[in-house]
């Protein structure tokens, strides 16, 4: 496969509970020369709730778009727009994903074992609200503009992130557990960013507070205990050293914890 393949049709096929044979006949797009599912995949099994995509690569785009219940496991990489507007269930990519994955996420869980591209959990073009619910865990690095306009939910990135994470964030929680983040939380209104190492912030935009025992932090840690062991260990091993509030430019009252 040299060219992008539009996988958004997957949800509709699963929802319609059509037979495997019929599913293989479904056209993947409305182009006249469109491929059928069967041209690329062999459909087998009976479980509509647990989909496994084998031998996936970065050209399969939009896997898990609008996904509501059940799991999708992607063996290999996935392309851009993975889990776009996902509403429930779990999408697990055992590799990297492309740009704008988890865009407009509205519930459920997206787990990425390797890296994610730009605009992870960001807003769809023209939408005022980005990720609105749900959880994204990236075990590798993530690109720029992560969590743009995010409103609710949780994003955790174990590795490094690109410039402008949590730009125009409305609310929600983002954990940046890797290296230094560049200009996170610009124009953030509310929300919590937790940085494992001191981020590069515009000094005029954020006010630094001394952070001594924070009740909410404890609640958050005990919540994370139920979610993911590795993150929980990181959080518990250190308590927040600093708290920044901002973005003052827009009278924001978001917070950035440095642990």
């Amino acid at each position, binding site marked *: 496969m040299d060219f992008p393949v539009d996988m*958004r*049709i997957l949800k*509709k096929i699963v929802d*319609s509970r059509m037979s495997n044979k019929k599913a293989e006949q479904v*056209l993947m*797009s*409305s182009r006249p020369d469109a491929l059928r599912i069967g041209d690329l995949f062999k459909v087998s099994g009976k479980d509509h709730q647990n989909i496994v995509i084998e031998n996936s690569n970065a050209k399969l785009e939009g896997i898990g778009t609008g996904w509501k219940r059940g799991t999708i496991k992607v063996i290999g990489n996935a392309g851009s727009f993975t889990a776009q507007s996902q509403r429930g269930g779990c999408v697990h990519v055992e590799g990297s994903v492309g740009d704008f994955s988890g865009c407009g996420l509205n519930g459920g869980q997206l787990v990425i074992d390797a890296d994610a591209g730009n605009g992870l959990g960001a807003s*769809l*073009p*023209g*939408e*005022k609200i980005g990720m609105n619910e749900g959880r994204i865990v990236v075990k590798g690095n993530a690109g720029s503009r992560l969590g743009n306009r995010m409103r609710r939910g949780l994003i955790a990135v174990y590795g490094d992130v690109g410039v402008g994470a949590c730009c125009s964030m409305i609310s929600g929680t983002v954990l940046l557990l890797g290296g230094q983040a560049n200009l996170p939380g610009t124009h953030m209104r509310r929300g919590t960013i937790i940085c494992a190492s001191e981020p590069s912030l515009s000094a005029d935009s954020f006010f630094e507070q001394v952070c001594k025992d924070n009740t909410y932090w404890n609640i958050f840690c005990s919540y994370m205990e139920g979610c993911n062991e590795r993150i929980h260990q990181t959080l518990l091993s250190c308590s927040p050293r600093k708290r920044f509030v901002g973005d003052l430019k827009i009278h924001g009252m978001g917070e950035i914890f440095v642990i």
Partner: protein
Amino acid sequence: MLTVIKGGTIYDPANGINGEVRDLYIDSDRLVPCPATDQHIDHVIDAHGMIVMAGGIDIHSHIGGGKANIARMMMANYFEPEHLNELDADHSVCKHAVPSTLITGKEYARLGYTLCFEPAVVPSNARQAHLEMADTPLLDTGGYLVLGNDDYFLKLLAEKADAQKLRDYVAWMLDATQCIAIKAVNPGGISAFKFNQRKLDVDEPHSHFGITPGQIVRSLTTAISDIGLSHPLHTHCSNLGIPGNFGSTLSTINAADGKPIHLAHVQFHSYGTEGKRKFSSATLEIAQAVNSDSSVSVDVGHVMFGQTVTISADTMAQFRTKDLASPNKSTFMDIECEAGCGVVPFKYRSKNFVNALQWAIGLELFLTIDNPWQVFLTTDHPNGASFTTYPHLIRLLMDRSFRNDMLSTIHRGAVEMSTIKDISREYSLYEIAVLTRAGPARSLGLKDRGHLGAGAVADVVLYRPAENWDTVFRHPVLVIKGGQTVVRNGEIIHMPRGRTLRQGVDFDSGIEKELKPHFEMYRTTRFSNFKISDDEMSNAIGSDVVYY
């Protein structure tokens, strides 16, 4: 080539035909009288049992121009790519509040409309409006030129220039912008808003030019009747949407001094201040004024529930409602010292008192204005609702029990405030044909449109009768445009280019000598680059001009 449409039941109010079974003959693009018996007929269309009407005419629908384009941009994410809808049942319905030109043309044709008027062509934006309308297939189009907020006109008025000069200016502008009628949008108000005046009543002076909306309406109606334009001043009155604005609407009618005047989307201008919520219907007063004065005509601008986007040149009114925007975003523009533009997305909700009452007021207007020739069927697309709701609206007018069923689904307070539950009137097919065909054509002076007499342009629509009028009008069996079958059973089979309808006017070219320095002094375009020629229309813009 001679075609006959045989045995259809004809509703042709312009020729007084009310449901008679007759044959219609089409020769190339025109309807012709019954030919001699020995003449060969090439093609027979069987219309037995069908309702036959002329092609629909929408007198007020925002289908082109900069503001529609901004609205498209803002609402772009409100529809899903088509191919993802294919597994859904209902993918043919257009979900976009302001569809693209291609979809607009197709959807109008599917509803049996063949002619459509863009009611707010801003002079400097006229070229874009015509470009967009030329890209709207299947529809003939025309534009109303927005005047009454442009600096030059206001200045002439403030300087008490003589009527001849005003008249020449209006005629020159109409000619230069290839329009068919003149529209006044919140006369003086858009300009006043640029000078930070937030409200301007009909008798209130503009803070900079010192003239009142009343004066503007008076001078424009005078100019229009002097020029001899068929369509009266197409007026978007002052104080749109403000409770109690029916007073301004009545004052505007008075300001016309007995000259013909058309009130656009009058539903938005018929509000009172009674009741505990200080918002009520004033349709009684408006309907009385219309019923007692045959020189007044209105289009309703009916509201339907759901997501839409309001677009208007009335920056002043639009800016007032920007906090009600849903989704919360809005675009405004001050344009070239001529007009403005405001785009505010809006969601009308049936359980919201104000929205429900707006819905009821629209119906009250339709049902209490006695003469169907004085009222036209519009939703002020997309401001009240998309034009795709027309069949539903027609059903509301023709079917009282359906209307009453709908009443039970809306806000109860609004039902109590409204009189529609007591109105038993039901529109007949003949009257619907007046509202949607014959009336608009007569008002715009289009002698060969909107009727099925010999010599008319062969725009013919065949409907199959059914219990539900919504179904009847939503799915015409056949739509013929200019003698060519364009839609058969909902399927588009031809996509002809439309033409631009305009009115030819005379003016003293002396006005050009005065305008030229004005352009050089005040504007950022030159006089010679402003005018749109017929040649440009047909060769570069792509729409041939038809003079009326």
